[in-house]
Each structure stands twice: as C-alpha cells, then as structure tokens.
C-alpha cells in the first residue's frame, strides 16, 4: 500500500496547506489563503475516502452535514465582538473530537498495529484533546460572558493542578499497561481527570490574559490532532496538527511578549494587585493648564479646540471601546477629522482585545482602511510629533507606569507612548485602573483631558461640534 505515489500526494497536499499560510502574509492574499487551505482539506478528505473507502457512507455523510450546517449557521450569524468566544468553543469541538477518536482507536488496539509509540501517542491525543475541550469550554464561557471573566483561584490551586497532572500521568501509565478488559475503565478515568485538568487550568486565567489562553488552546488542539495522527499512522493528520500547533505557539509567544509576562506567570495567575500611584516616579506633576474648563468642568471645550487645531491625530482604541460598541462612532469621528484635512491613524496594541489581532477585525468591520491600522512598534516613534491622541476605552496599554515603575503587574509591558503626544484626550467610562489594577498616571498629566462617561456620547458630542 505504501508507495511513492501515496507519499507524493500527501506531500503535495501538505505543500498546498503551507501555501495557504504563505498567502496569509498580507490582507489581499489572505482570503485566497483561506480558500487554498480549505481546498487542501477537501483533497485530504477525498484522498482518505479514496484510499480507505467507507463502510458507513450514510452515517459519515449525515454527521458531516449535521455538524457542517451547525457550524455554518453559527458562523454566518456571529458578531465580530463574539469571535473570541466562537473560536474558543470551536477549539473545544476539535478537542472533544480528538478525545473521541483517540478513545475509539485505543479501544480498538490502534488500528491493529498496537505499537508502543502508537499507543502512547493515542493516550497523549486523548489527554490533550480532553483537556483542550474542558479548558476551551471555560474560556468560551468567560469570553461569551456566560461566566465571570475574573480569574477564579481556589485554595491550594497550584497544588491541585500539580496533583491533577500527576494523576493524569499515573492513570495514563496504568492505561498503557492495562489488559483489554480493564482498558475501557482506565480510559474513562483518564478522560475524567483530563477534564478536571483542563478546568483547573483555565479557570485561573481571566480578563486581559485571555488572548494567551486562547492561543495556547489553539496550539493544544493542533497537538491533540497530531498525536492522534501518529496513533492512526496518517501523515496528513500529523502535518495539519503540527502546523496548527506551530501557529498556536507563535501566537502564544507574541501575546506573552506583548504583555512582557512569562507563560508560567500567566498560567500561575500571579496578578498581584498594587495600587500606589507612580506619579512621583514619572515626574509629571506639571502645573495643570487645562484645569479650569468653564463648561461644567468636564473638559469638553478643551478637547474640542484641541481637535480643531490638531494636524496629526492618533486614535488608540481599547477593549472598552469594543464593549461599548463605540467603534462606529470612533470611525465616524475619524472620517470627519480627515475631511477637515487632518491625518488620522489608529494605534493598535497587540493585546487590545480578547484574542490576538481582535481589535483589527473590529475596526475593519467598522470600515477602517486597514492601512491606517498601525502596529505598536511602528507608531511609537511618531507620538512626539503627534498633536492629539484620542484614547477610547484603553487603559493598561497606555499606562506609562509600565515603563517607568518597577514592581507593578504591568512593569516591563511595552505600551503605546501616548503620553509623549502634545495633547491626550481620554474617553473612558471612569477613572478606575484597567484590568491590572495599576493607576494610570496618564490621566493626571497636565496635557491630558479626560471625558469620563459613555464613550459613544462623548464621541457623538465631539462629532456634532466639529
């Protein structure tokens, strides 16, 4: 059965898949890339059916039509703000599928070959798939607002997690040695402890750390598929799983770097709350020149005149903007400012949102030209020459304490250097610190005008007056 031809076709499909990723390097090609990957999938699908046939074509077709129709219906209706939750639930679907397949293959004796490596891979696929499933359900529940976003830390959480991991290894080892009649029981127990492992792992992570969690689950879902592939001796499964694992690893790394937090720190949930103001360190006790506002003291007139005279404007959107669904107002304001002959750009922090790159999608949905969405490294040198920065619903990503003060939860995190601009207008709900709990000295700067309250309202007022 194993000929050069089958190896060649597998190789071609893998190349096609990688081509899809290659086309993803710019937005114009990305859509084609998605089609390429989907086509590679179709080929893989046809190849497996062609090579191995099917004894239950009706059952297979029915299952795929049912699942496909469900997936299609949800994907067609979902709003862009809900994408992270949808992706998390889909990681879960992939995880449970891997768990079921691994379970079935293990009970059938790994396709008859029963090699040690095959068996170990099957067990790993089962464990990782199951933990991905339960972890993703928690992540999806948090992201969809079905449960509390905050991290849940149990007493002795780390010890519980370690104990659970140990139990997984132990039961996995026993299942590997088990006689056929005891195998099913062992595997069921293994599934149980793996579910627990995923739960314990995920509930401790919340809020701004969600992008790391969702990227990590992306990687583990791929890894589970790859291990099942080794157990099933199917190269296409291994290859697809491996690329997903690679992509998930990259995104996990990017997200951790964007927050300057080690992976273990994120997963160990060490967010120490710290609330002393870092004003002294920053030395920004300038004499307030905008304190006397004369319109009820909310600084609106100053913000308006700053917007009128500014030439170079940078808008910094945060997740608060997305929660308030204010992106359409932001974009309208940006359009109006452009009509007045000003240069307007959007500065996107990598963790502005609940999954990697989420903010870009939200703004693209509001019909912002993607060339105006500028990454952090690129825009940061431009802030000193910027006349006006408009912060909408962002806090930690513009908190100068991150670079000026040691010992805070966000210390060392790269930020958007909004404080270097000539005038900063902040449209946030309130003066409360962001997720990190660190006070934001940006608000206390003399050059900062704060418009607290519903961002939509503040933006509409600005828009009407301009």
């Amino acid at each position: 059965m194993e000929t050069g031809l089958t190896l060649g076709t597998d190789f071609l499909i893998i190349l096609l898949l990688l081509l899809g990723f290659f086309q993803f390097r710019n937005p114009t090609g990305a859509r084609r890339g998605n089609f390429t990957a989907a086509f590679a999938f179709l080929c893989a699908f046809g190849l497996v059916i062609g090579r191995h046939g099917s004894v239950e074509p009706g059952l297979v077709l029915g299952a795929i039509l049912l699942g496909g129709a469900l997936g299609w219906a949800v994907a067609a209706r979902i709003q862009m703000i809900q994408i992270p939750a949808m992706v998390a639930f889909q990681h879960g679907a992939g995880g449970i599928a891997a768990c079921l397949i691994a379970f079935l293959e293990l009970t059938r004796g790994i396709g008859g070959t029963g090699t040690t490596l095959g068996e170990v891979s099957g067990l790993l696929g089962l464990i990782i798939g199951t933990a991905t499933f339960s972890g993703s359900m928690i992540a999806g529940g948090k992201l969809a607002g079905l449960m509390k976003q905050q991290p849940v830390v149990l007493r002795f959480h780390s010890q519980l997690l370690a104990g659970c991991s140990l139990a997984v290894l132990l039961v996995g080892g026993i299942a590997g040695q088990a006689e056929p009649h005891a195998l099913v029981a062992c595997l069921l127990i293994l599934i149980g402890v793996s579910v627990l492992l995923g739960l314990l792992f995920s509930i401790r992570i919340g809020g701004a750390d969600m992008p790391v969690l969702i990227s990590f689950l992306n990687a583990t879902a791929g890894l589970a598929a790859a291990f099942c592939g080794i157990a099933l001796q199917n190269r296409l499964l291994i290859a697809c799983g491996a690329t997903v694992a690679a992509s998930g690893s990259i995104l996990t790394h990017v997200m951790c770097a964007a927050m300057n937090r080690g992976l273990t720190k994120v997963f160990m949930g060490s967010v120490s709350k710290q609330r002393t103001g870092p004003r002294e360190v920053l030395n920004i006790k300038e004499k307030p020149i905008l304190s006397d506002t004369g319109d009820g003291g909310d600084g609106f007139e100053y913000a308006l005149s700053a917007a009128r005279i500014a030439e170079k404007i940078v808008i910094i959107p945060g997740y608060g903007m997305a929660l308030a669904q204010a992106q359409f107002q932001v974009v309208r304001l940006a359009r109006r400012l452009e009509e007045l002959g000003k240069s307007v750009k959007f500065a996107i922090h990598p963790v502005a949102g609940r999954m990697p790159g989420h903010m870009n999608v939200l703004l693209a949905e509001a019909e912002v030209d993607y060339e105006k969405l500028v990454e952090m490294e690129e825009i940061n040198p431009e802030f000193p020459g910027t006349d006006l920065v408009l912060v909408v619903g962002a806090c930690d990503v513009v908190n100068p304490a991150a670079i000026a003060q040691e010992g805070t939860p966000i210390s060392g995190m790269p930020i958007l250097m909004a404080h270097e601009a000539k005038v900063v207008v902040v449209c946030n709900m309130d003066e409360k610190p962001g997720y990190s709990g660190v006070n934001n000295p940006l608000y206390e700067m003399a050059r900062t005008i704060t418009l607290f309250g519903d961002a939509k309202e503040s933006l509409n007022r600005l828009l009407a007056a301009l």
Partner: protein
Amino acid sequence: MGDLLVMISVFVLTFAFGYAVISRVPPLLHTPLMSMTNAISAVIILGGLLLFSSETTGVEKLLGFAALVAAAFNLFGGFMITDRMLKLFKKGNAPFDLRR
C-alpha cells in the same frame, strides 16, 4: 519502525516549516489566522473517516458519529468565519454611510 520515523519527521518538518511561514503573518491578520488554524485542527475528521473504513460496533458508531459532528462543526464554522472576517479588510476609504 521505519513508518514511525517517517511520521516523527513529518511532524517535526511541518512544525518547522509552518513556524517559518506563519511567523511572517502580520499581527493585523492574527485573528483570521487563528480562526483558520482552528478550522485546520478539525483535521481530526480524517480520523473519523478512518474509523468508518472498517466494521464498527454500535457504541463505536455512536461515538464516531459524535466525533464527526464536532469536527465538521469546527471545520465548516472555522473556514466560514475566517472568510467573513477577511472580507472586512479593505484598502482605501470605502463609501461610508455617515448616517449609520
């Protein structure tokens, strides 16, 4: 044993090549990227196909069916939502309805 060696090298090579290619995807496209890889992780659907390439018992049919449904949900939903997102990325100011 030769087979296993091939499989390990397939894993290592695709991981390495995938890593190299995917590193070049700009942060702008990270959400669609994850959503597409999410669809690709539904490749486990091939495992479901392989399961039904030989005779199965009743329990196996039931669990296999569930696995196929879950994987197909992930697969179709993933590619579909990725396409929807990528359609949003436009260059230049598209005609914009200010009354919206």
